[in-house]
């Protein structure tokens, strides 16, 4: 029984004809937030002043409060920072960095996690023990300590953050996939395929992995928010995305010094971060309830 079948056959009215994510308010909220942010990020030049580093007369344009217009006639929705840069524009361009770094890092984690988990689930004996032992070991390492070390040792860059977050985040995915693959390998449709002489690689890619991916999708959705938050954290500490390239994390860090006279500089990117993390949590919860009814939390 495939995942898709289970959904269509489900008795829950929420998962029938209507696109499921409209029926579930949590999912609708999550999808709406991500869609809106994606649109804004893609069309950044159209919805902002177009240059996140644009500075004019610093003395005249700095620390302008939200909803004000400067002497050049430029409107500042979220005000300006201490260099007179438009905060809204920086938020918009920062969303490009923050979202893509977070999502790419999650993709790296999923790729590593699925490979390790699938190999460990498929192979037997020493290979399995070694792989899962290594996974458990890596899971026990304090992640933030590792992140700090890795991110600060090399020249900081957005790409390094992707690599570092990806390399330190794959373990839960590997454990999930391992469990699923082992469970599925004992099912009769896999035995049937084996009896028919289908190659192991084909069994894995056609019969096992597609069925094992459901919990991975859920975990990845839940994890994206966390990854974006960690990226912001690293950038906040100065070992992530480097200024003047705007990321929500380094915007919070720069707003920290102007908390008294320009609180909006640090407040706005933080609010966006919370919004994204809430969206990813709610969407993930909704996905889990829809795709894995057995693990549904009682409502």
């Amino acid at each position: 029984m495939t995942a898709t079948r289970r959904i269509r056959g489900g008795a829950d009215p929420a998962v029938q004809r209507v696109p499921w994510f409209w029926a579930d308010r949590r999912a609708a909220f999550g999808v709406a937030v991500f869609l809106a942010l994606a649109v804004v990020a893609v069309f950044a030049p159209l919805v902002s002043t177009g240059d996140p580093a644009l500075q004019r007369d610093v003395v005249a344009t700095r620390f302008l409060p939200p909803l004000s217009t400067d002497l050049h006639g430029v409107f500042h929705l979220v005000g300006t920072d201490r260099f007179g840069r438009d905060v809204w524009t920086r938020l918009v361009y920062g969303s490009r960095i923050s979202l893509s770094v977070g999502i790419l890092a999650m993709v790296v984690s999923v790729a590593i996690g699925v490979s390790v988990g699938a190999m460990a689930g498929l192979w037997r004996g020493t290979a399995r023990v070694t792989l899962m032992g290594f996974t458990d070991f890596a899971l026990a390492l304090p992640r933030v300590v590792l992140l700090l070390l890795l991110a600060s040792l090399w020249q900081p860059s957005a790409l390094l953050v992707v690599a570092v977050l990806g390399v330190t985040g794959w373990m839960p995915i590997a454990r999930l996939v391992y469990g699923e693959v082992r469970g599925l390998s004992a099912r009769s449709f896999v035995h049937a395929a084996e009896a028919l002489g289908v190659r192991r690689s084909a069994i894995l890619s056609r019969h096992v992995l597609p069925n094992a991916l459901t919990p991975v999708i859920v975990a990845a959705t839940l994890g994206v928010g966390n990854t974006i938050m960690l990226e912001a954290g690293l950038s906040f500490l100065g070992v992530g995305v480097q200024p003047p390239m705007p990321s929500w994390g380094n915007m919070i860090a720069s707003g920290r010094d102007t908390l008294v006279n320009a609180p909006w500089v640090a407040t706005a990117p933080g609010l966006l971060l919370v919004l994204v993390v809430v969206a990813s949590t709610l969407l993930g919860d909704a996905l889990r309830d829809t795709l894995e009814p057995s693990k549904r939390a009682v409502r």
Partner: protein
Amino acid sequence: MIRFLARRVVVGAAVVFGVVTLTFLLLRLAPGDPVERLIGPAATPVQIEAQRRSLGLDRPLVTQYGIWVGRFAAGDWGTSIARGRPVREVIGTAWPATVILVGLSLSLSYLFGILVGAVQANASGSRLDTGLSVATVAVYALPGYWLGLMLVMVFTYWLRVLPAFGAAGLDADFVGGWAWFVDRLRHLVLPVATLTLIGIGGAARFVRGSMLDVLSQPFVAVARAKGLTSRRVTFRHVLRNALVPLVTLLGLSIPALFSGAVFVEAVFAWPGVGRVLVEAVQGRDYPVVMAATAVSAVLVVVGNLTADLLMALVDPRVQHTS
């Protein structure tokens, strides 16, 4: 029980050893030279070479590692390159601050988290439940360093009621007794509040789910059918059983809290292991980085071990699995 414990201790020791080895390798393989940072750009190659030798950085990697492990085990943690003080002294003054911060936040967030979760489960499906659900998800999503800044903005800059930085006031050494205690407490409020608020979100979500699971069990229906008061059912039958999986959450939240503490310590200039680590990493202070990493790994492993032990005491089945 002894065997179970022994195995966990061995695994924990392996993790600490692995962390230390990994840190050592990463530090040595990464570009950047602590000596150049230490003595500045004006130094001649001869001076650099001499400094390298005196720090033992000119030897082969394996030798350096062997020497380091031997000395570390013997209690000689070296001298901080940046501060010139013994590393043991630096870490020794730092770790109690982190343990106080994390321990206090952990207890408070469990206390309030259980309360909120229990209220939600009892009123499941109501407006109150939905409202609290939204609130806990939002609070759980708050980045610690940002929440910290917001609290500083409100309570230090606007209301001017609480200190924002450090663990003690400037005059801390000159006041005694009660005033000293109050000063310490006031400095604790904002960092602890930051970590606690986020922790409440996580704990409440967990308790709500686990209580609802228990509520659907047949023995709850039996208890109600016996005519027990609803308070008695909630406290004696539901909450007690719902708290068992909470011990699992404890194992998960200890490392998470330490991670959170790294950021929160950086925001509040809290003199703990996290801040020492951040500063040492940024300044390439090898001996301090090594020791701080080892100590945080030990703290996390001991935290996990405690959670495992509690779990095994609460639920004896755990000892026989895995």
